[in-house]
């Protein structure tokens, strides 16, 4: 809330706030195999749910307080491409809002052995534009 109020104070009247956040429940580990994209496993993003809820609440509060007005939004896919299994593991271990379980690791390793290809993670993202009132 304080962050959004500070942003409101820093923006000129009529200015624009653009918020980009991962959208829930649609992030996947994939293997790019030739022209095909094989979905290997959906990522468990539950550690981020509280933060996501807090962000949504904060945005809704500044809208209710008539500091900002929602104008437009869209979804898009943000993809990470990894040059190796180890690069994927390293990246995943650094994400606090993703569960990197031994089962997931093994499942991806096995899938990559069965279907050699390029490993990627596709995250569904939400971008929303708000007008500063």
């Amino acid at each position, binding site marked *: 809330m304080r962050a959004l109020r*500070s942003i409101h104070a*820093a923006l*000129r009247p009529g200015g624009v*706030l653009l918020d980009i956040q991962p959208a829930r429940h649609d992030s996947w580990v994939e293997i790019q195999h030739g022209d095909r994209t094989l979905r290997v496993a959906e990522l468990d993003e539950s550690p981020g749910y509280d933060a996501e809820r807090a962000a949504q609440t904060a945005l809704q509060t500044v809208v209710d307080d008539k500091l900002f007005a929602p104008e437009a939004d*869209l979804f898009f896919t943000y993809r*990470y491409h990894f040059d190796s299994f180890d*690069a994927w593991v390293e990246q995943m271990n650094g994400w606090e809002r993703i569960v990197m379980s031994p089962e997931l690791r093994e499942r991806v390793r096995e899938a990559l052995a069965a279907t050699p290809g390029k490993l990627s993670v596709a995250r569904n*993202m939400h*971008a929303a534009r708000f007008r500063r009132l």
Partner: protein
Amino acid sequence: MAVLRDPEGNETRALHQLVSFTSKDVLEIGCGDGRLTWRYADVARSALGLDPSASAVESAWAALPARLRPTVRFQVADVITAELPAEAFDVALLAWSL
């Protein structure tokens, strides 16, 4: 070991689809290493990137292209403590930061 982020440019497309950065003063909160800054800074009038991570801001300064030096600045700060000037920006960008 390498990671390529959004080589398809989907984030850049979404960014420019929703906001015009042309000749705008932009405040970017959670700028990290400047990954997103380079996607709009060429057309902005000015850009100030904030991030609480000193190492991230150091990386952003190091990666700042010479052509953007007159218009882009980075600062180790969060938006609450940064003591920003009032009503000084046209666009505020919050990417993965709220």
